[in-house]
């Protein structure tokens, strides 16, 4: 019987508690194995089925939708080097950054005590005049979790990427590099 990685279990727990909507219970997650990820090529643009793109570094693998989030996610990626996860959600272009950031913040506040919240907005470095929100959270419930949520508002869709990281610099840098490459 395969044993779930500690990072996987931790990540699932955290994301479920963060209001992302888990299809199964924590217990089920804890006893379920991490599905085998499908590696994605590093250094070349990755076009998602939903129309957004990324420029991933090495070590990222695609896992089935619902592995960490619920089935409403569009794409889920796992960083096999650090154990981080990213879940992508696609919203219509009418969804504003203000509304999505507020909703995510409220959802996280329901899952635990939000100890830290810092947000920056800027233009995408890969698409002209596309505003991007990058929010950093530190949330405390039974464990302390760090999340990076990047929301990019394009003319056709708004994409929200929720990243759950380990508490180390390498995780943060790799997550930042991936999410900053998001083009909605």
């Amino acid at each position, binding site marked *: 019987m395969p044993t779930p990685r500690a990072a996987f279990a931790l990540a699932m727990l955290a994301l479920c508690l963060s209001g992302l909507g888990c299809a199964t219970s924590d217990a089920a997650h804890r006893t379920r194995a991490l599905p085998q990820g499908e590696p994605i090529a590093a250094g070349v643009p990755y076009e998602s089925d939903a129309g957004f793109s990324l420029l991933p570094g090495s070590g990222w693998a695609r896992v089935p939708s619902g592995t960490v989030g619920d089935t409403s996610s569009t794409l889920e990626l796992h960083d096999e080097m650090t154990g981080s996860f990213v879940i992508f959600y696609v919203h219509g272009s009418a969804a*504003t*950054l*203000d509304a999505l*950031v507020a909703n995510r913040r*409220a959802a996280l*506040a329901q899952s635990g005590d*939000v100890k830290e*919240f*810092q*947000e*920056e*907005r*800027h*233009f995408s470095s890969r698409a*002209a*005049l596309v*505003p991007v*929100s990058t*929010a950093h959270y530190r949330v405390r419930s039974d464990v302390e979790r760090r999340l990076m949520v990047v929301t990019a508002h394009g003319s056709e869709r708004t994409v929200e990427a929720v990243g759950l990281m380990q508490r180390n610099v390498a995780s943060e840098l790799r997550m930042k590099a991936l999410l900053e490459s998001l083009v909605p």
Partner: protein
Amino acid sequence: VRRGRRAAPAAGRQALAATVAGLLALAALPAAAAAPQAWFHAEPLRGAGPLGVEPAQPDAARRERLREAGHGYVDLVWNTRIRLRADGDVESHTVLQRHFLSESGVASNGNLEVLVDAAREKLHLDAAFTQTRDGERVEVPHGTLQIGDAPHPFVFSDLKRVVVPYPGLSPGATAVLAFTRVHHTRAWPLPWGEILFFQSLAPIEAREVHVEWDEGVAAPRWLDDDPALTCERGERHVTCRRSAVEALPTDGAVASYFDVVPHLALSTATDWPVLARRIQELVEERARVTPTLQARADRLTAGALAPRDRLERLYRFVSDEIRYVAMEHGASAVIPRPAEQTLAQRYGDCKDKVTLLLALSSAAGLEAHAVLASFQRYELDRLLLPESAYFDHMIACVALPDEPELVCVDPTLTRAGLELPAELHGAVALSLRDGPQHPHTLPRGPYGWDIAVEERVEMGCDGSARRTTERRFAGPASFSLRAWLLAAPSDEQQRFFAQEYHDSVSLEVTPRFELRDLSEPNRPFALTSHVEERSGTTAAVSTGVVEHYDVDPWLITYARALLAENRVHTYRMPGLRYRAVQDYAPCAQQSVRFTGARLAFRSELGRLERHYDRSAPGVRIVTEFEAPARDFTPDELVTFRRFIATTLGQSQIWLSLE
């Protein structure tokens, strides 16, 4: 050449209409009917002139297409014939046939107007009649011709307008006007020249300009920038034609239609340096320092050692204490009055004030020169030939020791600092100084508007807020607002501010406004408002936690004001620099838990940056927005609109309080 202070470029369309055709439709008639005038003759009014007046027959299908396109009239024929006579005078004949397509065209364009400079021109109306829809010819009665002065409250000149009200007009009728004008050029101090347009705000079926010169007369120079124009040259004539000319498209915000309408320039000036030298002589001759001027300069600059201070004092005197009145009769239209006369009269037009400033500067040991400029032209390559008519204003530039750039000032303004108004930034100019001079453009600053906001918000625990906001206005575009405020009674000022507040912030309250530093030209003028908001934008989100949402209405108002809806012509965006410092003080029972997004939007079009500083008591929010002045094509304007919409859309202020 009129160098009177022109209206703002916003009035460019009217100015174009007047200049393009020389024929401006008027809604109301002047009061005085035609009386005998030395410069005007209209008897008999049944002639034809050398060009003939047989009405052209409009093509029915094209006429219908133009009507459906919304045109009220079409000029079937617009011909000009110019003759440079051996006696030195210039004779020009014009015939215009205006065919009306709609009732509205008749209502708003049923009068034709001819502008004439009575001091140096003679006008003869050769023919004026209506060809009715039924083919009947109805003459304009001589007694209905109207003569008036070109209206301007502070400009007095020999410029007259003759208005021809056409009888019996209805859609399908044609108004025919033929006139002859003789320019007496011999006594005029500047070389003759003329600018002729081949497009106007209405469609033209046939436009022709024929120029001929008598034997022994030097051929004028001519040049055009109209790719659709065909010109043929004979031994002593040139003829240029265009047909089926579409109406010049209008647009949302056009700095100058003169920069977009094609033209033919005729000039007898040798070259730009010679023309500049000639006008320089006219100015410098009248800027000679007399004992009276020297004494005045000494008194004004007493105790001021630094050259900039000396200039500042002289400029303040000429700008603020010599009022603007233009008496441009005869050659005074182009020759300034002697500086001492302007000093004695305490009034003058732009060139009089510049000449006085030059004289005082010279007396004070400053090196200054005059510069011709234009409020209505920004495209240097549209200045085809040496022609003073391209310019409508005069300013002064001073070379101060130890300052690398010339300091250029416009003494026609009042209460302005040592910089030019926004309308002259990037405008075409001709320096009147030693050395060979050619046209150039005046420097264009990056920010027409420079606005700083300081706000203190005292937040009540019940969601109320007490807000004190000070806005400070600087930058060359603020000159006209300052001038308007200086002239406006205080109740009108309050109404203006209240309207702006209601449009930008809230209809629910009307703050009391206080103005400061309006008369201090070297300081931004400040406007302070105090307001108490009963119910704020604070909402409880959970036990002990409330969230406060806010916007910066002035950022939104001023940044949105940069936008234009141009679809055809280039938009000259004036540029804005905006900085707001907002201090939010929560009520005693609350503290700031989290703050909203740090903004770092940067693009080649500008930037919006914000940070929240929690080192201060409460929280200080510093917002900076910059969009440097720039010309946008309609396509580029779409991108700029997106930049503004995107950045402003992300500018919400948010605080989480507990």
